[in-house]
């Protein structure tokens, strides 16, 4: 990684030398604050109640590991196939409904994984309508008479998680495909490569940094999922972590497992970066050259429609329809004037967190561009670690420094002035926004960083040589060029915050509900039907930003 970039630094020494340390210091302070929760968990890991590893090694750890790897590999496969195929079809091919699928492909993103898991279980398990209908139809009496795939299984969990997470890959791949100059494709074709061969040899390698960001988000979210794997009784490392924490009462041991998972993620990300360390791409984005989409034969158009339609049906339409059905049946029992307030809480928190995350993400990514040192790169990675930890563990990591700070301030005031300030930050909406920011910074910082890398440094140098400061250059040159990426990053964070559950539960103020916590109240009491209405509202509230997001991406390029 370092070699190529240092060469860049050597080629463009002006950028670093002519920049004051202000950006570097801001970035360092921000990173330090944002990294506090993760550091707290690392410290907790030093003090386990008892050494958990001998027991784990002798019993469940091997299976936890294998299951976790299988789950991650399966989800990676599903999200890559669906995400890349649909992104390519929608960007480069002409077929009926293409405009609709441009944004519809993102719809499953609005469905939380725990919700889709509940819905499919109620539909597909032995007592559900599908199997009951089949038994009536074929005259089977009980489970021994026929075979039906078990939804509560590793395969089921893989499918559920894959269905709602592929939009990460789709989103980033599509943005990358749109940014690619069509002339690259034309050149490859004119040199005798088929469209398929060009896709694998030219298009994908160029889009790889973006796809890698998307996939790493998918994998981290998979690794940390607890709702789905718990409900399906799939024994991943996360399940083992919560078992250690809640059942064995060993928070330190749980923190050790979290740390192990964190190390695993870091190794994975580093390997990916290392493998493309020699690559460095700059493309002055060219908006004038329109994308010419392929005109396809009828059967091929049909394939495109199928590729796009299937994930939308199973990832969105079917779950939403089921929720709608339950919501309708239980409407009187579940309608409640608090919905409006809960919805506003969700929107407000998610909006604030999205904005905060975006600003910090841009600050860090741009600082890295100005000071491409090893230290800055480490900071960049450090600030993104929050995403690699289960939400509930991160929440404890947030409590530690915030409550520590509150009690420290309070202690000083009590000792010197005899007054108590109580808790200033803990148990406030600030704690929630802070937790969301720490958790989802990886999303914004990662996508801004990868998009910034594609802007040639000659842009910076031109602006700087004309007398603009780094800050001015960012505002006048980079941000306008990054508009699509920025809006996308903010909206992804927004939707993620709308769905966030475990940290919200633990950190929220008294009497404070978001849509997600409200759903959980009922779902955790095995009352799926009562939670259908608010779950549907989460999904619907997620759709609006999704449509905006898609529109903003399309707008980044005039399309003929």
């Amino acid at each position: 990684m370092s070699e190529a970039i240092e060469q860049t630094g050597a080629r463009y020494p002006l950028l670093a030398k002519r920049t004051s340390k202000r950006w570097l210091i801001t970035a360092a302070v921000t990173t330090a604050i944002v990294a506090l929760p993760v550091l707290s968990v690392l410290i907790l890991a030093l003090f386990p109640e008892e050494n958990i590893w001998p027991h784990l090694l002798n019993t469940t750890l091997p299976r936890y590991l294998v299951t976790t790897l299988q789950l991650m590999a399966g989800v990676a496969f599903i999200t890559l196939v669906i995400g890349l195929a649909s992104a390519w079809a929608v960007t480069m091919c002409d077929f009926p409904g293409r405009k609709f699928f441009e944004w519809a492909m993102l719809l499953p993103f609005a469905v939380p994984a725990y919700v889709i898991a509940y819905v499919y279980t109620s539909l597909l398990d032995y007592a559900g309508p599908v199997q009951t209908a089949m038994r009536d139809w074929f005259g089977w009496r009980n489970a021994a008479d026929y075979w039906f795939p078990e939804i509560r299984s590793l395969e089921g969990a893989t499918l559920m998680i894959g269905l709602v997470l592929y939009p990460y890959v789709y989103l980033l791949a599509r943005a990358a495909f749109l940014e690619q100059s069509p002339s690259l494709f034309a050149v490859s074709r004119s040199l005798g490569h088929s469209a398929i061969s060009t896709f694998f040899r030219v298009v994908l390698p160029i889009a790889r940094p973006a796809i890698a960001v998307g996939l790493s988000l998918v994998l981290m979210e998979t690794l940390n999922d607890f709702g789905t794997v718990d409900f399906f009784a799939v024994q991943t490392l996360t399940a083992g972590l919560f078992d250690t924490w809640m059942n064995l009462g060993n928070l330190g041991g749980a923190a050790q497992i979290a740390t192990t998972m964190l190390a695993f993620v870091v190794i994975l990300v580093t390997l990916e970066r290392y493998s493309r360390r020699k690559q460095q791409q700059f493309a002055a984005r060219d908006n004038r050259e329109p994308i010419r989409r392929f005109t396809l034969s009828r059967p091929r158009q049909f394939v495109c429609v199928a590729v796009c339609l299937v994930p939308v049906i199973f990832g969105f339409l079917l779950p939403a329809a089921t929720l709608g059905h339950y919501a309708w049946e239980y409407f009187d029992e579940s309608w409640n004037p608090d919905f409006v307030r809960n919805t506003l809480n969700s929107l407000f928190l998610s909006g604030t967190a999205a904005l905060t995350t975006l600003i910090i993400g841009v600050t860090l990514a741009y600082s890295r561009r100005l000071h491409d040192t090893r230290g800055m790169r480490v900071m960049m990675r450090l600030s993104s670690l929050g995403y690699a930890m289960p939400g509930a563990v991160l929440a404890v990591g947030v409590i530690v420094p915030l409550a520590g700070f509150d009690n420290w301030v309070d202690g000083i005031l009590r000792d010197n002035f005899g007054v108590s300030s109580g808790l200033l930050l803990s148990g406030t909406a600030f704690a929630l926004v802070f937790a969301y920011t720490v958790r989802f910074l990886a999303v914004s910082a990662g996508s801004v960083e990868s998009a910034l890398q594609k802007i040639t440094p000659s842009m910076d140098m031109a602006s700087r040589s004309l007398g603009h400061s780094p800050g001015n250059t960012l505002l006048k040159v980079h941000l306008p060029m990054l508009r699509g990426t920025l809006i996308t990053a903010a909206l992804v964070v927004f939707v993620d915050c709308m769905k966030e559950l475990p940290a919200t539960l633990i950190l929220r103020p008294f009497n404070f509900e978001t849509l997600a916590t409200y759903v959980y109240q009922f779902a955790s009491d095995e009352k799926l039907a009562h939670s259908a209405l608010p779950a549907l509202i989460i999904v619907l509230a997620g759709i609006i930003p999704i449509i905006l997001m898609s529109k903003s991406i399309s707008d980044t390029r005039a399309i003929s």
Partner: protein
Amino acid sequence: MKMKLAATAIAAACALPLQASADGEVNIYSYRQAYLLEPLLNAFQEETGIETNVVFAKKGLAERLEREGRNSPADLVMTVDISRINELVERDLVEGIENDTLQNNIPQNLRHPDGKWFALTTRGRLIYASKERVEEGEITTYEQLADEKWDDRICTRSGKHPYNIALFSSMIAHHGEEATEEWLEGLKDNLARKPQGGDRDQIKAIHAGECDIAIGNSYYYGNMLNDENQREAAESVRLVFPNADGRGTHINISGIALTKSAPNRDNAIRLMEFLSEPKAQQIYAEANTEYPANPSVKPSGMVAEWGEINPDDLSLQEIAENRSAAVKMVDRVDYDN
């Protein structure tokens, strides 16, 4: 510009939740869903004028309480499992209280010896049996769950769920680790499917013919009877109170404890007293079809119809102490796979 906007938004976010003021309030950290508490807390407010504030979560509240330390706004913690409440005692986060009302209302075996927690309701961990395929009296004890005759006929949720862990802990307390492990292996061998879902799902599985017997809490059955879409499934099973003629049926509790840091101590104790009195006990038990902890209060009509429960008088403390052994046993037996 954007920075300013963000700063304003963050400032607004901080101001949003009104911090609980010092008087006329009680603050509760609850492991029990807030909507289940609502009718009670409303009744309390009506009677006393004291407002209540709740945070509900299933994990992390003990950590939050511990870290907030002396400044924690929480006065009370409400839990739904003995191990959660015992954790608070072990971490020294709760205060023992001597209070005549509470001691009169809650029997000795349902409270901490030093008043560090009090049970408010109890629930039996019962056996659900298919009315169609299991004769009355065919199964009467937990021990029989390991009999070969039930091979491939039993369903349960995950062995790691706190309710199962508490049941297994009580088995360890009665029979010792070795015999319990043998029993658990037998039970595992009898499972018709990999443990999954919640307690309601086990009833649904019996209804669907996937298994004939399941383990579950009494109130899930009651709540299904109250839900017209689930009633049919519930009506296909019979409740069995295991070991009723012997040591008694394993019970778990929902309980309440006063925090050490409680800023509204007097109001909090007032709420604890209120919850132990017949009026609240009635509402509380009825809302979730549980058994009131106060012996002077009769269970709700439906719960009473199920028949008398003869609870195992094993101390809950002892169950909590065997938790870790039970968890590790579930791993060794590989129960969940």
